[in-house]
């Protein structure tokens, strides 16, 4: 596609419910990244994928968070038993290859509100 897309754009959920956030990277991009942006804050790194593999999951805030990627394209970030502190904008980015030289292109994000 022309750019990174994310769905839904906005999600309101009740505390304790599970949510699934989706990211479609730019076609052909092998690396994919998830970030979280709390209100008034910079971006906090969560996890990255090289192909379908996530070598380092230490950035995930808790074991309620998980992510997967299939077919070297779409990725989903799942938050189980959501808490109010999970409210944030979740941003996805992709890059052609994994490496410090390569620019990350961001999607518009999903705004998650946990009531």
């Amino acid at each position, binding site marked *: 596609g022309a750019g990174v897309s994310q769905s839904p754009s906005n999600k309101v959920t009740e505390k304790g419910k599970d949510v699934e956030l989706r990211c479609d990277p730019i076609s052909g991009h092998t*690396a994919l*990244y998830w*970030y979280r942006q709390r209100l*008034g*804050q*910079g*971006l*906090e*790194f969560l996890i*990255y994928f*090289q192909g379908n593999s996530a070598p*380092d999951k230490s*950035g995930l805030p808790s074991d309620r968070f998980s992510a997967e990627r299939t077919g070297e394209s779409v990725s989903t970030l799942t938050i189980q038993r959501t808490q109010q502190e999970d409210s944030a*904008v979740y*941003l996805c*980015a992709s890059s052609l290859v*994994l*490496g*410090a*030289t390569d*620019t*990350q*292109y*961001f*999607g*518009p*994000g999903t*705004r998650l509100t946990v009531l």
Partner: protein
Amino acid sequence: AQTVTQSQPEMSVQEAETVTLSCTYDTSESNYYLFWYKQPPSRQMILVIRQEAYKQQNATENRFSVNFQKAAKSFSLKISDSQLGDTAMYFCALRSGSEKLVFGKGTKLTVNP
């Protein structure tokens, strides 16, 4: 640990004038990359400019340029001839020895007509 600090939470500038946004960083890596991203109200993060640490020449992209002071670990962004469309949050980011970007907390820039 890598850190990025933006000491100006908010700034404003008159249309057509020049403004400079500050950023300092810390890393123990010798090879790294620095970025400025723009985030308008649409939430889309847009890359404005990037700088490779091994390059002494400051990066320039049209009206945007940086002042990269490696010894001082400073990486400021200068916007010349400011336009109303430049109104946005601006984030400084660092990438070194790792796949992740480390971001500062951002500077909210308002361009006034």
